[in-house]
Protein backbone atom coordinates (compact mmCIF):
# COMPACT_ATOMS: atom_id res chain seq x y z
CA UNK A 1 0.00 0.00 0.00
CA UNK A 2 1.60 3.24 -1.06
CA UNK A 3 1.26 6.53 0.75
CA UNK A 4 -0.96 7.88 -2.07
CA UNK A 5 -3.59 5.26 -1.31
CA UNK A 6 -3.73 6.09 2.38
CA UNK A 7 -6.96 7.59 3.63
CA UNK A 8 -6.82 10.53 6.06
CA UNK A 9 -8.03 8.06 8.71
CA UNK A 10 -5.04 5.74 8.06
CA UNK A 11 -2.67 8.67 8.45
CA UNK A 12 -4.31 9.65 11.73
CA UNK A 13 -4.01 6.09 13.04
CA UNK A 14 -0.36 5.90 11.99
CA UNK A 15 0.49 9.24 13.63
CA UNK A 16 -1.33 8.24 16.80
CA UNK A 17 0.49 4.89 16.83
CA UNK A 18 3.82 6.64 16.62
CA UNK A 19 2.97 9.07 19.41
CA UNK A 20 1.26 6.66 21.79
CA UNK A 21 0.50 3.10 20.61
CA UNK A 22 -1.35 2.32 23.82
CA UNK A 23 -3.98 4.97 23.06
CA UNK A 24 -5.26 3.10 19.98
CA UNK A 25 -8.39 0.99 20.11
CA UNK A 26 -8.25 -2.73 19.31
CA UNK A 27 -9.85 -2.24 15.86
CA UNK A 28 -7.43 0.51 15.03
CA UNK A 29 -4.49 -1.64 16.10
CA UNK A 30 -5.77 -4.55 13.98
CA UNK A 31 -6.22 -2.24 10.98
CA UNK A 32 -2.72 -0.89 11.43
CA UNK A 33 -1.30 -4.41 11.75
CA UNK A 34 -3.06 -5.54 8.55
CA UNK A 35 -1.74 -2.51 6.72
CA UNK A 36 1.82 -3.15 7.91
CA UNK A 37 1.55 -6.84 6.88
CA UNK A 38 0.36 -5.86 3.42
CA UNK A 39 3.27 -3.41 3.07
CA UNK A 40 5.75 -6.05 4.19
CA UNK A 41 4.49 -8.74 1.81
CA UNK A 42 4.63 -6.24 -1.07
CA UNK A 43 8.22 -5.34 -0.27
CA UNK A 44 9.13 -9.04 -0.01
CA UNK A 45 7.66 -9.78 -3.41
CA UNK A 46 9.56 -6.80 -4.89
CA UNK A 47 12.86 -8.10 -3.49
CA UNK A 48 12.10 -11.61 -4.80
CA UNK A 49 11.33 -10.20 -8.25
CA UNK A 50 14.62 -8.26 -8.34
CA UNK A 51 16.51 -11.39 -7.23
CA UNK A 52 14.94 -13.37 -10.09
CA UNK A 53 16.03 -10.64 -12.51
CA UNK A 54 19.57 -10.61 -11.16
CA UNK A 55 19.88 -14.36 -11.37
CA UNK A 56 19.97 -14.10 -15.16
CA UNK A 57 23.29 -12.30 -14.97
CA UNK A 58 25.98 -14.79 -14.13
CA UNK A 59 29.68 -14.21 -13.94
CA UNK A 60 32.33 -15.91 -15.98
CA UNK A 61 33.91 -17.70 -13.02
CA UNK A 62 30.68 -18.73 -11.27
CA UNK A 63 31.00 -22.25 -12.59
CA UNK A 64 34.73 -22.64 -11.88
CA UNK A 65 35.03 -25.66 -9.63
CA UNK A 66 38.68 -26.69 -9.38
CA UNK A 67 41.23 -26.63 -6.59
CA UNK A 68 44.05 -24.08 -6.27
CA UNK A 69 46.51 -26.99 -6.62
CA UNK A 70 45.08 -27.89 -10.03
CA UNK A 71 45.35 -24.28 -11.15
CA UNK A 72 48.99 -24.21 -9.98
CA UNK A 73 49.73 -27.18 -12.24
CA UNK A 74 47.87 -25.53 -15.15
CA UNK A 75 49.87 -22.30 -14.70
CA UNK A 76 53.21 -24.13 -14.57
CA UNK A 77 52.35 -26.13 -17.72
CA UNK A 78 51.31 -22.95 -19.56
CA UNK A 79 54.46 -21.11 -18.49
CA UNK A 80 56.63 -23.96 -19.83
CA UNK A 81 54.59 -24.08 -23.06
CA UNK A 82 54.97 -20.33 -23.54
CA UNK A 83 58.73 -20.40 -22.98
CA UNK A 84 59.15 -23.36 -25.36
CA UNK A 85 57.04 -21.62 -28.01
CA UNK A 86 59.04 -18.40 -27.84
CA UNK A 87 62.34 -20.32 -27.81
CA UNK A 88 61.24 -22.31 -30.87
CA UNK A 89 60.04 -19.13 -32.62
CA UNK A 90 63.38 -17.38 -32.08
CA UNK A 91 65.35 -20.52 -33.08
CA UNK A 92 63.22 -20.90 -36.22
CA UNK A 93 63.67 -17.23 -37.15
CA UNK A 94 67.45 -17.37 -36.79
CA UNK A 95 68.01 -20.62 -38.71
Amino acid at each position, binding site marked *: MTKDLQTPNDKLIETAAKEDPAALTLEEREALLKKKEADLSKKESEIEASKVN*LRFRYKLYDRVNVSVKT*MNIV*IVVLVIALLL*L*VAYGIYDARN
Partner: protein
Amino acid sequence: MEKAIAKSKVDKRKVSEFLLTYALYFILGIILLVVIIIEPKFLSLTNLINILKQASTKGILALGCAGLIVLAGTDLSLGRILGLSAAVTASIVQSVTYASRYYPQITKPVPLIVPLLVSIVIATAISAFNGFGVAKLHLHAFIVTLGTSLIAYGITCIYVENQAMGSAMALSTFDLRFTNIVNGTIKLFGVQIPYVILYFFLASFIMYIIWNKTTLGKNMFAVGGNEEAAAVSGVNVTKTIMGVYIIAGIAYGIGAFLEAARVQSVSTSTGFNYELDAISACVIGGISFSGGVGNVPGIMVGVIILQAINYSLYYLDVNAYLQFIVKGVIIILAVSIDVRKYLKRK
Protein backbone atom coordinates in the same frame (compact mmCIF):
# COMPACT_ATOMS: atom_id res chain seq x y z
CA MET B 1 65.03 -26.50 15.18
CA GLU B 2 61.35 -27.27 14.51
CA LYS B 3 60.63 -23.57 14.50
CA ALA B 4 63.34 -22.96 11.89
CA ILE B 5 61.94 -25.75 9.65
CA ALA B 6 58.42 -24.34 9.98
CA LYS B 7 59.71 -20.84 9.18
CA SER B 8 61.57 -22.02 6.08
CA LYS B 9 58.39 -23.84 4.92
CA VAL B 10 56.36 -20.64 5.34
CA ASP B 11 59.04 -18.67 3.46
CA LYS B 12 59.05 -21.21 0.62
CA ARG B 13 55.26 -21.03 0.43
CA LYS B 14 55.41 -17.24 0.35
CA VAL B 15 57.98 -17.28 -2.45
CA SER B 16 56.00 -19.81 -4.56
CA GLU B 17 52.83 -17.81 -3.91
CA PHE B 18 54.57 -14.63 -5.09
CA LEU B 19 56.00 -16.37 -8.16
CA LEU B 20 52.63 -17.84 -9.14
CA THR B 21 50.75 -14.56 -8.61
CA TYR B 22 53.18 -12.57 -10.73
CA ALA B 23 54.12 -15.44 -13.08
CA LEU B 24 52.99 -13.56 -16.16
CA TYR B 25 55.10 -10.49 -15.45
CA PHE B 26 58.15 -12.69 -14.81
CA ILE B 27 57.67 -14.65 -18.02
CA LEU B 28 57.08 -11.57 -20.14
CA GLY B 29 60.10 -9.95 -18.48
CA ILE B 30 62.23 -13.03 -19.26
CA ILE B 31 61.08 -13.00 -22.91
CA LEU B 32 62.00 -9.33 -23.24
CA LEU B 33 65.36 -9.96 -21.57
CA VAL B 34 66.11 -12.81 -24.00
CA VAL B 35 65.20 -10.57 -26.94
CA ILE B 36 67.51 -7.81 -25.63
CA ILE B 37 70.38 -10.31 -25.17
CA ILE B 38 69.93 -11.64 -28.72
CA GLU B 39 69.44 -8.19 -30.26
CA PRO B 40 70.93 -5.49 -28.01
CA LYS B 41 69.82 -2.86 -30.55
CA PHE B 42 66.23 -3.62 -29.54
CA LEU B 43 66.74 -1.39 -26.51
CA SER B 44 67.05 1.74 -28.65
CA LEU B 45 64.99 4.86 -28.00
CA THR B 46 63.35 4.59 -31.43
CA ASN B 47 62.03 1.11 -30.61
CA LEU B 48 60.76 2.24 -27.22
CA ILE B 49 58.94 5.18 -28.81
CA ASN B 50 57.52 2.84 -31.49
CA ILE B 51 56.25 0.44 -28.83
CA LEU B 52 54.61 3.29 -26.90
CA LYS B 53 53.14 4.75 -30.10
CA GLN B 54 51.60 1.42 -31.13
CA ALA B 55 50.40 0.79 -27.59
CA SER B 56 48.72 4.20 -27.37
CA THR B 57 45.60 3.71 -29.50
CA LYS B 58 45.17 0.16 -28.21
CA GLY B 59 45.65 1.54 -24.71
CA ILE B 60 42.78 3.99 -25.15
CA LEU B 61 40.59 1.10 -26.36
CA ALA B 62 41.70 -1.04 -23.41
CA LEU B 63 40.80 1.79 -21.01
CA GLY B 64 37.24 1.73 -22.37
CA CYS B 65 36.99 -2.05 -22.42
CA ALA B 66 38.43 -2.39 -18.90
CA GLY B 67 35.32 -0.82 -17.35
CA LEU B 68 33.18 -3.49 -18.95
CA ILE B 69 35.44 -6.24 -17.61
CA VAL B 70 35.24 -4.66 -14.14
CA LEU B 71 31.46 -5.05 -14.52
CA ALA B 72 32.18 -8.79 -15.05
CA GLY B 73 31.36 -8.41 -18.73
CA THR B 74 33.42 -8.01 -21.88
CA ASP B 75 33.29 -6.47 -25.35
CA LEU B 76 33.80 -8.56 -28.45
CA SER B 77 32.58 -5.76 -30.73
CA LEU B 78 35.38 -3.30 -29.88
CA GLY B 79 37.49 -4.02 -32.98
CA ARG B 80 34.59 -3.79 -35.39
CA ILE B 81 33.21 -0.64 -33.75
CA LEU B 82 36.66 0.87 -34.20
CA GLY B 83 36.67 -0.28 -37.85
CA LEU B 84 33.33 1.39 -38.58
CA SER B 85 34.15 4.64 -36.79
CA ALA B 86 37.59 4.77 -38.42
CA ALA B 87 36.08 4.17 -41.89
CA VAL B 88 33.58 7.02 -41.48
CA THR B 89 36.31 9.29 -40.06
CA ALA B 90 38.64 8.41 -42.94
CA SER B 91 35.97 9.15 -45.55
CA ILE B 92 35.43 12.63 -44.09
CA VAL B 93 39.10 13.60 -43.75
CA GLN B 94 40.30 12.57 -47.20
CA SER B 95 42.26 15.32 -48.90
CA VAL B 96 40.05 17.65 -50.95
CA THR B 97 42.60 17.44 -53.78
CA TYR B 98 42.25 13.64 -53.98
CA ALA B 99 40.16 12.85 -57.05
CA SER B 100 38.81 9.48 -55.82
CA ARG B 101 37.68 10.73 -52.41
CA TYR B 102 34.58 9.26 -50.79
CA TYR B 103 32.70 12.54 -50.62
CA PRO B 104 33.49 14.55 -53.79
CA GLN B 105 30.98 17.15 -52.59
CA ILE B 106 33.37 18.14 -49.76
CA THR B 107 35.48 20.80 -51.47
CA LYS B 108 36.90 22.56 -48.42
CA PRO B 109 38.84 20.91 -45.56
CA VAL B 110 36.45 19.94 -42.78
CA PRO B 111 37.29 21.12 -39.21
CA LEU B 112 38.81 18.10 -37.45
CA ILE B 113 36.31 18.33 -34.62
CA VAL B 114 33.60 17.11 -37.06
CA PRO B 115 35.12 13.67 -37.84
CA LEU B 116 36.10 13.30 -34.18
CA LEU B 117 32.52 13.92 -33.03
CA VAL B 118 31.10 11.67 -35.77
CA SER B 119 33.47 8.89 -34.71
CA ILE B 120 32.51 9.30 -31.04
CA VAL B 121 28.77 9.37 -31.82
CA ILE B 122 28.91 6.18 -33.92
CA ALA B 123 31.00 4.27 -31.39
CA THR B 124 28.92 5.51 -28.45
CA ALA B 125 25.63 4.61 -30.15
CA ILE B 126 26.74 1.01 -30.73
CA SER B 127 28.27 0.71 -27.27
CA ALA B 128 25.12 2.15 -25.67
CA PHE B 129 23.12 -0.48 -27.58
CA ASN B 130 25.39 -3.13 -26.04
CA GLY B 131 24.81 -1.54 -22.64
CA PHE B 132 21.04 -1.60 -23.13
CA GLY B 133 21.18 -5.31 -23.97
CA VAL B 134 23.21 -6.07 -20.85
CA ALA B 135 21.54 -3.68 -18.38
CA LYS B 136 17.91 -3.81 -19.44
CA LEU B 137 17.46 -7.06 -21.34
CA HIS B 138 19.82 -8.96 -18.99
CA LEU B 139 21.63 -10.58 -21.92
CA HIS B 140 25.18 -11.77 -21.40
CA ALA B 141 27.76 -9.30 -22.72
CA PHE B 142 29.31 -12.06 -24.87
CA ILE B 143 26.09 -12.52 -26.84
CA VAL B 144 25.17 -8.85 -27.29
CA THR B 145 28.66 -7.73 -28.26
CA LEU B 146 29.12 -10.71 -30.60
CA GLY B 147 25.94 -9.65 -32.39
CA THR B 148 26.87 -5.97 -32.62
CA SER B 149 30.36 -6.97 -33.78
CA LEU B 150 28.87 -8.65 -36.84
CA ILE B 151 26.41 -5.79 -37.41
CA ALA B 152 29.22 -3.21 -37.23
CA TYR B 153 31.38 -5.27 -39.59
CA GLY B 154 28.55 -5.60 -42.10
CA ILE B 155 27.91 -1.85 -42.03
CA THR B 156 31.65 -1.15 -42.45
CA CYS B 157 31.84 -3.40 -45.53
CA ILE B 158 28.76 -1.78 -47.09
CA TYR B 159 30.09 1.70 -46.29
CA VAL B 160 33.60 1.08 -47.66
CA GLU B 161 32.26 -0.66 -50.79
CA ASN B 162 29.88 2.22 -51.44
CA GLN B 163 32.67 4.39 -52.82
CA ALA B 164 32.25 6.31 -56.07
CA MET B 165 34.89 3.98 -57.54
CA GLY B 166 32.57 1.08 -56.74
CA SER B 167 35.25 -1.02 -55.07
CA ALA B 168 36.28 -1.88 -51.54
CA MET B 169 39.51 0.09 -51.94
CA ALA B 170 41.10 1.23 -48.66
CA LEU B 171 40.30 4.81 -47.69
CA SER B 172 43.53 6.77 -47.77
CA THR B 173 45.19 10.07 -48.81
CA PHE B 174 44.15 12.06 -45.77
CA ASP B 175 44.30 15.75 -45.04
CA LEU B 176 47.76 16.49 -43.59
CA ARG B 177 46.27 18.27 -40.58
CA PHE B 178 44.59 14.98 -39.64
CA THR B 179 47.70 12.79 -39.86
CA ASN B 180 49.77 15.42 -38.05
CA ILE B 181 47.42 15.38 -35.09
CA VAL B 182 48.70 11.88 -34.29
CA ASN B 183 52.03 11.48 -36.04
CA GLY B 184 53.28 14.96 -35.20
CA THR B 185 55.84 15.14 -32.40
CA ILE B 186 56.74 17.39 -29.52
CA LYS B 187 60.23 17.65 -28.02
CA LEU B 188 60.23 16.69 -24.34
CA PHE B 189 63.51 16.32 -22.40
CA GLY B 190 65.38 16.23 -25.70
CA VAL B 191 63.23 13.39 -27.10
CA GLN B 192 60.71 13.67 -29.95
CA ILE B 193 57.49 12.26 -28.48
CA PRO B 194 54.56 11.58 -30.86
CA TYR B 195 51.35 13.35 -29.82
CA VAL B 196 49.46 10.05 -29.69
CA ILE B 197 51.51 8.94 -26.69
CA LEU B 198 50.50 12.12 -24.85
CA TYR B 199 46.84 11.46 -25.73
CA PHE B 200 47.16 7.98 -24.21
CA PHE B 201 48.56 9.35 -20.95
CA LEU B 202 45.90 12.06 -20.88
CA ALA B 203 43.14 9.49 -21.49
CA SER B 204 44.59 7.30 -18.73
CA PHE B 205 44.59 10.24 -16.32
CA ILE B 206 40.95 11.09 -17.13
CA MET B 207 39.95 7.43 -16.76
CA TYR B 208 41.81 7.29 -13.43
CA ILE B 209 39.73 10.26 -12.20
CA ILE B 210 36.49 8.65 -13.42
CA TRP B 211 37.29 5.33 -11.77
CA ASN B 212 38.55 6.65 -8.46
CA LYS B 213 37.00 10.05 -7.85
CA THR B 214 33.46 9.84 -9.22
CA THR B 215 30.28 8.17 -8.01
CA LEU B 216 30.00 6.30 -11.31
CA GLY B 217 33.45 4.80 -10.80
CA LYS B 218 32.70 3.68 -7.27
CA ASN B 219 29.31 2.28 -8.34
CA MET B 220 31.02 0.44 -11.20
CA PHE B 221 33.25 -1.45 -8.74
CA ALA B 222 30.26 -2.12 -6.48
CA VAL B 223 28.16 -3.54 -9.34
CA GLY B 224 31.12 -5.54 -10.68
CA GLY B 225 31.92 -6.96 -7.25
CA ASN B 226 28.40 -7.94 -6.23
CA GLU B 227 25.50 -6.72 -8.30
CA GLU B 228 22.82 -7.84 -5.86
CA ALA B 229 24.51 -6.18 -2.90
CA ALA B 230 25.00 -2.99 -4.93
CA ALA B 231 21.32 -2.94 -5.92
CA VAL B 232 20.19 -3.47 -2.32
CA SER B 233 22.57 -0.68 -1.21
CA GLY B 234 20.75 1.76 -3.46
CA VAL B 235 23.06 1.76 -6.49
CA ASN B 236 21.17 2.18 -9.74
CA VAL B 237 22.58 -0.86 -11.54
CA THR B 238 21.04 -0.09 -14.95
CA LYS B 239 22.26 3.50 -14.93
CA THR B 240 25.75 2.42 -13.84
CA ILE B 241 26.07 -0.24 -16.55
CA MET B 242 24.78 2.17 -19.21
CA GLY B 243 27.21 4.86 -18.00
CA VAL B 244 30.20 2.52 -18.22
CA TYR B 245 29.20 1.36 -21.73
CA ILE B 246 28.79 4.96 -22.89
CA ILE B 247 32.23 5.89 -21.53
CA ALA B 248 33.64 2.83 -23.33
CA GLY B 249 31.97 4.03 -26.54
CA ILE B 250 33.56 7.47 -26.19
CA ALA B 251 36.97 5.81 -25.71
CA TYR B 252 36.42 3.65 -28.81
CA GLY B 253 35.40 6.72 -30.84
CA ILE B 254 38.54 8.62 -29.85
CA GLY B 255 40.64 5.47 -30.41
CA ALA B 256 39.14 5.02 -33.90
CA PHE B 257 39.88 8.64 -34.83
CA LEU B 258 43.51 8.30 -33.69
CA GLU B 259 43.99 4.85 -35.23
CA ALA B 260 42.77 6.08 -38.64
CA ALA B 261 45.35 8.88 -38.49
CA ARG B 262 48.08 6.52 -37.26
CA VAL B 263 47.67 3.80 -39.91
CA GLN B 264 46.82 6.39 -42.63
CA SER B 265 44.73 3.86 -44.57
CA VAL B 266 41.42 2.38 -43.46
CA SER B 267 39.93 -0.76 -44.99
CA THR B 268 37.29 -3.31 -43.95
CA SER B 269 39.96 -5.22 -42.03
CA THR B 270 40.88 -2.25 -39.80
CA GLY B 271 40.26 -3.14 -36.17
CA PHE B 272 40.41 -6.90 -36.77
CA ASN B 273 41.29 -8.69 -33.51
CA TYR B 274 41.82 -5.42 -31.62
CA GLU B 275 39.33 -6.64 -29.03
CA LEU B 276 41.62 -9.56 -28.22
CA ASP B 277 44.58 -7.24 -27.71
CA ALA B 278 42.52 -4.92 -25.51
CA ILE B 279 41.00 -7.73 -23.43
CA SER B 280 44.34 -9.52 -23.00
CA ALA B 281 46.06 -6.25 -22.04
CA CYS B 282 43.37 -5.72 -19.39
CA VAL B 283 43.76 -9.24 -17.99
CA ILE B 284 47.57 -8.94 -17.97
CA GLY B 285 47.10 -5.60 -16.22
CA GLY B 286 45.18 -7.24 -13.39
CA ILE B 287 41.55 -6.56 -14.36
CA SER B 288 39.71 -9.63 -13.12
CA PHE B 289 37.08 -11.40 -15.21
CA SER B 290 35.32 -12.15 -11.93
CA GLY B 291 34.48 -8.42 -11.78
CA GLY B 292 35.04 -5.59 -9.34
CA VAL B 293 38.84 -5.69 -9.46
CA GLY B 294 41.30 -3.55 -11.40
CA ASN B 295 43.06 -0.23 -11.71
CA VAL B 296 44.14 2.16 -14.46
CA PRO B 297 47.95 1.95 -13.95
CA GLY B 298 47.59 -1.85 -14.29
CA ILE B 299 45.94 -1.43 -17.69
CA MET B 300 48.72 0.91 -18.84
CA VAL B 301 51.37 -1.62 -17.81
CA GLY B 302 49.40 -4.48 -19.42
CA VAL B 303 49.06 -2.65 -22.74
CA ILE B 304 52.73 -1.65 -22.88
CA ILE B 305 54.01 -5.13 -21.91
CA LEU B 306 51.78 -6.86 -24.46
CA GLN B 307 52.83 -4.44 -27.19
CA ALA B 308 56.50 -4.87 -26.25
CA ILE B 309 56.15 -8.66 -26.64
CA ASN B 310 54.35 -8.28 -30.00
CA TYR B 311 56.92 -5.80 -31.21
CA SER B 312 59.89 -7.88 -30.05
CA LEU B 313 58.61 -11.05 -31.75
CA TYR B 314 58.03 -9.06 -34.92
CA TYR B 315 61.48 -7.46 -34.52
CA LEU B 316 63.12 -10.90 -34.30
CA ASP B 317 61.18 -11.97 -37.39
CA VAL B 318 59.38 -14.76 -35.55
CA ASN B 319 56.83 -16.55 -37.77
CA ALA B 320 53.61 -14.48 -37.86
CA TYR B 321 51.41 -17.55 -37.31
CA LEU B 322 53.47 -18.55 -34.30
CA GLN B 323 52.90 -15.05 -32.89
CA PHE B 324 49.15 -15.77 -32.83
CA ILE B 325 49.81 -18.96 -30.85
CA VAL B 326 52.05 -17.08 -28.39
CA LYS B 327 49.37 -14.42 -27.90
CA GLY B 328 46.73 -17.12 -27.32
CA VAL B 329 48.87 -18.86 -24.70
CA ILE B 330 49.54 -15.50 -22.98
CA ILE B 331 45.77 -14.85 -22.75
CA ILE B 332 45.05 -18.34 -21.37
CA LEU B 333 47.91 -17.98 -18.89
CA ALA B 334 46.66 -14.56 -17.76
CA VAL B 335 43.13 -15.92 -17.24
CA SER B 336 44.46 -19.00 -15.40
CA ILE B 337 46.35 -16.77 -12.98
CA ASP B 338 43.20 -14.69 -12.56
CA VAL B 339 41.12 -17.83 -11.84
CA ARG B 340 43.72 -18.90 -9.27
CA LYS B 341 43.47 -15.52 -7.53
CA TYR B 342 39.67 -15.87 -7.58
CA LEU B 343 39.85 -19.35 -6.02
CA LYS B 344 42.21 -18.06 -3.34
CA ARG B 345 39.79 -15.25 -2.45
CA LYS B 346 36.83 -17.65 -2.40
